[in-house]
């Protein structure tokens, strides 16, 4: 339960007792039942502690990256050991004597994680060790494994996730030029096993303290890392054949899956920032479909149609199956046509668009009609459900479609400026009108 909901419950319960809806004992039991959740979500202190330790840790790494050549081997190696032992000792003290202080526990985990990296960096520079950045990050990843578990510290798990993602991406053969690295000594299977460590930690946090800010932080890290890994894997799967149409299909499935997962399972509250999967999925799906509304997009894609597009990717099949299952579950749960049907339907729209590729005008008309219909449905649902946000969302999508066509056309700057002013005034007046109407309904 979020802090706000708990406070609401605290306020409401006395009147419920007075009205005889619940007994005094039940009211107390209810408050006790959710008190733990409330405590875990009081995390502004934790956030500042995390930030503080991260800054101190990065500062130390930065200071030693200066390479103080006034320090001899002995001083440097002593420093490396002292930093690590200091961080371990601090984490031990927190675990033993201040285990209930979440802010300190999270901070000490992050500090320990960073000092492990700092020690390795000092050793590397002292002995002029070769090897790429990927080697360094791989050793760091392995040595810092388990820090999140033993404290426990979501902050350390957050950095583990980020580090793991870098190592995974850097280990891909095709990415070696980007990271200017050789192979990591960690094989893909070993990396997959290492991922189980932070995935397991995340699952535990999710089960124990779903609404805590630390769990939400891990949720964001998970969403960003899976997006990064997924994007690269999809790019690599389609790159050899320059299969851009297949790539757009894969991304459409991926974003729709993200959205559906975020709607049904991976959310930590009602606010936008508490729903990373849903927000990323929605944004990605809308950007993808809007990128195809102009006629220029169709003609640009034609240059990749020298060979017939093949839809034979295993990754594509897996994503399609997952999307199908999630869509059925979502419709069953909602029991009605979802208001954001446009986001769910992006894979179908993209499939139709790509199948019509021999007729560019028909393809463009299909995608435009789909987007306008989907956005129109959003506006209709928004008015019906008295949700101004949904109405605005639909209007923004329609406005974007109009602007894209307007900018593709050869109109002068005055005409383009007028288009902005007219749509702006339309937005403002419609918002004012709907606000008044919604107030009347309320």
């Amino acid at each position: 339960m979020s802090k706000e909901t708990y406070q609401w419950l605290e306020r409401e319960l006395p009147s419920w007792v007075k009205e005889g809806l619940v007994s005094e004992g039940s009211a107390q039991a209810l408050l006790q039942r959710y008190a733990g959740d409330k405590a875990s979500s009081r995390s502004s202190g934790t956030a500042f502690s995390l930030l503080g330790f991260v800054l101190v840790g990065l500062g130390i790494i930065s200071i030693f990256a200066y390479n103080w050549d006034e320090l001899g081997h002995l001083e440097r190696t002593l420093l490396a050991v002292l930093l690590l032992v200091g961080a371990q000792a601090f984490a031990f003290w927190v675990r033993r004597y201040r285990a209930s202080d979440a802010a300190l526990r999270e901070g000490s985990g992050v500090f320990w994680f960073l000092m492990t990296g700092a020690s390795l960096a000092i050793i590397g520079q002292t002995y002029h060790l070769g090897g790429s950045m990927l080697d360094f990050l791989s050793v760091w990843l392995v040595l810092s494994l388990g820090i999140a578990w033993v404290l426990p510290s979501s902050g350390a798990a957050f950095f583990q996730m980020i580090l793991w993602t870098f190592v995974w991406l850097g280990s891909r053969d095709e990415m070696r030029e980007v990271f200017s690295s050789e192979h990591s000594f960690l094989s893909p299977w070993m990396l997959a096993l290492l991922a189980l460590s932070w995935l397991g930690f995340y699952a535990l946090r999710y089960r124990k303290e779903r609404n805590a800010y630390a769990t939400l932080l891990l949720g964001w890290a998970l969403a960003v890392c899976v997006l990064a890994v997924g994007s690269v894997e999809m790019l690599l799967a389609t790159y050899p054949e320059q299969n851009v149409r297949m790539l757009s299909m894969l991304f459409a499935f991926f974003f729709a899956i993200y959205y559906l997962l975020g709607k049904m399972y991976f959310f930590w509250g009602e606010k936008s920032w508490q729903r990373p999967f849903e927000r990323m999925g929605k944004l990605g799906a809308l950007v993808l479909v809007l990128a195809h509304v102009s006629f220029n997009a169709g003609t640009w894609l034609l240059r990749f149609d020298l060979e017939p597009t093949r839809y034979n990717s295993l990754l594509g099949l897996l994503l399609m199956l997952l999307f199908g299952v999630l869509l059925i579950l979502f419709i069953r749960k909602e029991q009605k046509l979802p208001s954001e049907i446009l986001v769910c339907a992006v894979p179908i729209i993209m499939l139709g668009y790509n199948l019509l590729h021999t007729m560019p005008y028909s393809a463009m008309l299909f995608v435009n009609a789909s987007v306008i219909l989907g956005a129109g449905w959003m506006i209709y649902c928004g008015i019906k459900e008295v949700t101004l946000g949904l109405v605005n969302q639909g209007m923004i999508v329609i406005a974007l479609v109009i602007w894209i066509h307007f900018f593709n056309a050869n109109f002068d700057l005055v005409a383009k400026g007028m288009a902005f002013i007219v749509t702006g005034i339309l937005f403002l007046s419609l918002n004012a009108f709907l606000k008044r109407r919604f107030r009347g309904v309320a």
Partner: protein
Amino acid sequence: MKRMQRLLGILFGFICAVQLGVIGWSIWSYERILKEGEVYFFNVLPLDPYDAFRGRYVTLRFENANKAPAGDTTPQEHRSKAYAILEHTQEGDRIKEMRFSKPVSGNFLEVNVHSTMAAQKTDVSNTVYFSLPFDRFYLREDRAPKAERILRMRDVNVSVKASLRVLNGKAVIENLWIEGVPLVEWMRRHEEARSR
């Protein structure tokens, strides 16, 4: 619950021990190489890049240390590691030959074999292409770019050498030398001469 806490406590100790063990073992093994290893000098060409965690360094491009004749007949396909046999000669230190089986004595260095280049060249010669496992010399942040600038401007006849300490197949770069003077000292003299 208590058992779980005890288990986490043991895990805590294990992680600390592994971390300290890895760091301590690294220090011990590199210090041993520096203390007991034989010194070899190789000509190098330094360049100045940057590492976000370990700071500035000069990349060392070792001259005459990227290919050598194969010294044994062990099949070399799909081998990623080989051993460079080092020797002192009157012209300077050099890599005498490459072996794919680990030598039992003498001074040798474990290197990374470039399999693609080796495959391309095997039909025309018995040469093994490889890279040394180190290519960095870390310097103070303000000194590395200066070092590279000075070294780029230098007279082509001035020799820049890296001294390596080699022991049991492993090596550590000990120092960079310009005309027999350590790089940092040489830079100090160079700057003093310029200011005069």
